[in-house]
């Protein structure tokens, strides 16, 4: 018996060594799943066949190609990484999410070097994490917005000025579609135009640790003043649908994905340009924009040989030749430098506008998920604002909301109670203790009580028993106060201070 076991064991060892030995050669046939956008499914099929025919490593891919929009590739991948595409395309903003889900395989040294040398520098940054590891192949460098316009309404000499465009459209009774009230992505355009920034930092686990945000500043005020001009115009429509051209629009701010449709709708009357400038107090500001890349990722594989072969394919698909084919067929702007320098790409009017706008663009880095909702309400606020003070208030609220994201994250304290419906979540009527202090109006009610807690919790260790100064302002309920609540005797305006051990209450 022992002999048989040892024989089997040694056989297994030999076999496993055999499979290691063959790891040097990538030759073989692999069944793979590839996810790409619907419009390049056929093209990608052809490109993979070309790869099979031309590669000198003996790799043959038996590929199933599925249509999967880049916009929600991460959602689909995260559903079940195991069943997801072996190679898939996604928009840059999903990068961090995919790494966290373990859906991206690192690039080997050779591949990393090729990407480093052959691709747009910003695109290289987009696929690299802070520790210098590369995780994906840049596919396109065209994910930003710019202006499509109707040449019959807006003369060429007017396209650089937002004011003139508004005047032209008002005169012609045509709309300007610029999604200012429902999308932070488009709304940021004005802020970036005046030099505001919103830069978010994450730690290695992908958790947001800090933000440098200058939207609430003099520059930000200039931005919202410019924004107000557009929002106040009766011809402004908050939309980025290219179909707007079929609904009385003369200008639509949108991205390259809409180019084919725009051509279909307007034909020879279609004009394309970078975004215009706006004027505040005699000074011109060119509108900025978000700019991003589309990336191609390889899913981690259990078989190292297959993984290596997949990386070869991904390199091929994002290489010069394939990028040019995608541009020729679908107008996609390559991230590959050699393809970008090609005459056909350099002379493409739409990509010209994209690259022109990229000069004013901000590369979209990791951004806190809540930012999009926090920032998008600025549009409505600005539209409703009547005075400059109102505009300032909108920006102040934005800054407070951003700060609140971190107060919640860094276990700051907040004051819950009858006055805000015992709300200890992160919403507008949450009372945060800034630097340990808080001023609030306590409205008249049957029970004017509450206590200091950590966000999202109901702990009872910071309340009535910790009040050292101002005890005469609150009620001593004794045993009727099991939750250690501070119950005010009268309605009024109070300031509470928490120094870490004791609470001070002062009536204002």
């Amino acid at each position, binding site marked *: 018996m022992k002999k048989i076991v040892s024989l089997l064991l040694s056989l297994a060892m030999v076999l496993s060594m055999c499979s290691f030995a063959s790891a040097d050669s990538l030759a073989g046939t692999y069944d793979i799943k590839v996810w790409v956008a619907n*419009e390049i499914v056929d093209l990608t099929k052809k490109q993979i066949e070309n790869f099979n025919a031309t590669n000198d490593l003996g790799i043959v891919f038996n590929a199933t190609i599925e249509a999967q929009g880049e916009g929600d590739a991460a959602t689909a991948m995260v559903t*079940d990484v195991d069943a997801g595409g072996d190679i898939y395309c996604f928009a840059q903003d999903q990068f961090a999410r995919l790494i966290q889900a373990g859906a991206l395989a690192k690039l080997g040294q050779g591949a990393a070097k090729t990407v480093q040398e052959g691709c747009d520098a910003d695109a290289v940054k987009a696929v690299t994490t802070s520790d210098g590891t590369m995780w994906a192949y840049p596919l396109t460098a065209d994910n930003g917005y710019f202006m499509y316009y109707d040449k019959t309404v807006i003369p060429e000499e007017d396209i650089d000025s937002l004011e003139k465009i508004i005047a032209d459209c008002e005169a012609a009774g045509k709309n300007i579609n610029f999604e200012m009230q429902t999308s932070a992505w488009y709304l940021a355009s004005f802020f970036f135009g005046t030099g505001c920034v919103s830069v978010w930092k994450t730690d290695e686990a992908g958790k947001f640790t800090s933000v440098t945000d200058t939207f609430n500043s003099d520059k930000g005020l200039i931005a919202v003043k410019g924004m107000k001009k557009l929002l106040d115009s009766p011809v402004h429509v908050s939309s980025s649908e290219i179909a707007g051209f079929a609904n009385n629009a003369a200008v639509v701010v949108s991205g390259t994905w809409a180019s084919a*449709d725009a051509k279909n709708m307007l034909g020879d009357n279609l004009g394309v340009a970078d975004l215009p400038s706006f004027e505040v107090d005699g000074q011109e500001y060119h509108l900025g924009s978000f700019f991003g890349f589309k990336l191609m990722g390889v899913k981690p594989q259990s078989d190292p040989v297959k993984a290596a072969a997949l990386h070869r394919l991904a390199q091929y698909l994002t290489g010069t030749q394939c990028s040019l084919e995608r541009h020729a067929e679908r107008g996609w702007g390559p991230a590959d430098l050699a393809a970008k320098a090609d005459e056909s790409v350099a002379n493409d009017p739409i990509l010209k506008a994209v690259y022109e706008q990229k000069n004013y663009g901000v590369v979209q880095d990791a951004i806190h998920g809540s930012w999009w909702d926090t920032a998008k309400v600025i549009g409505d606020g600005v539209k409703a604002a009547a005075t400059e003070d109102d505009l300032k208030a909108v920006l102040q609220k934005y800054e407070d909301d951003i700060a609140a994201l971190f107060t919640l994250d860094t276990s700051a304290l907040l004051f819950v109670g009858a006055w805000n419906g015992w709300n200890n979540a992160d919403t507008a009527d949450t009372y945060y203790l800034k630097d340990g202090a808080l001023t609030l109006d306590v409205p008249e009610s049957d029970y004017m009580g509450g206590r200091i807690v950590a966000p999202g919790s109901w702990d009872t260790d910071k309340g009535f028993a910790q009040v050292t100064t101002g005890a005469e302002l609150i009620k001593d309920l004794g045993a009727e106060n099991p939750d250690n609540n501070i119950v005010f005797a009268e309605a009024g305006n109070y300031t509470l201070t928490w120094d870490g051990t004791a609470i001070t209450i002062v009536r204002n």
Partner: protein
Amino acid sequence: MSENTAKRHMGLRASRALSNTLIHVLLVVMSVVWLIPFVCILLQSFRVESTWQVGYVIPQKWGFDNYVNLWNTDFPRWYMNTLITALVTAVLQTVIVLCMSYTLSRFRFKMRQPLMRFMLILGMFPGMLSMIILYRVLKDLGLTQANAVPGLILVYVASSGMGYYVSKGFFDTIPMSLDEAARVDGATRSQVLYKIILPLAKPIVIYTILTAFMGPWGDFVFARYISFGASAGKNVAVGLYDWLSKDQINKSYTLFCAGGVLVALPVTLLFLFLQKYYVEGVTGGAVKG
């Protein structure tokens, strides 16, 4: 008969005419409101001058291009998937439900009451609760993504026994003495079901078939989860939804409408022809629980 009574009669007739008019106007308005979305989809599906959303309802150019173009997409595949799923489910589920109802209505066995109570409680859990674990099970069986059709059939049919309430209620209203008479004449239990009960319960059979067909035909949530990332396994609802994604809507909007019309067609026809039985089935089964 005095003049006054005659007047009163006229007044009655006039007021009845008035209230009838009002009711009819109200009904017309309501049906217009209900029908508008369907009419819009129908009209848009015949619009051929452009493929994106437009601000008007009546097409400027009419044609069947969208219906023809559907053949060049994955739509026929999705349609077949849905049809197969729905038909197989309809047959299997009907058989199971009717057998179940017959058993619970006519047989008296020890576990009858506990079983019914157990199923009542089980039925209170929302089905979505089991979605993730079902996905895992199906994945291990290899019945997800491109093979979603058998997987979905399995899921739809597996729980069908619990939907016996309406038909059992209907069976309960058929007198026991009929069964007994048949049994005395030498019919077996199954003969009683096929030859006595089912002919009497035609409305409920049709009602069961209809509901069993409708569930899979319109399912979205579960089908989307099971078939994600594989066009070959999608049903029409999931496939059509993908045409509304940002990068496809401008190319596929009218196509989507045409697809929507084709999806609605068989269901509409079924209901038109079987409406009578459907109503009888719903109300008949509700007599006694």
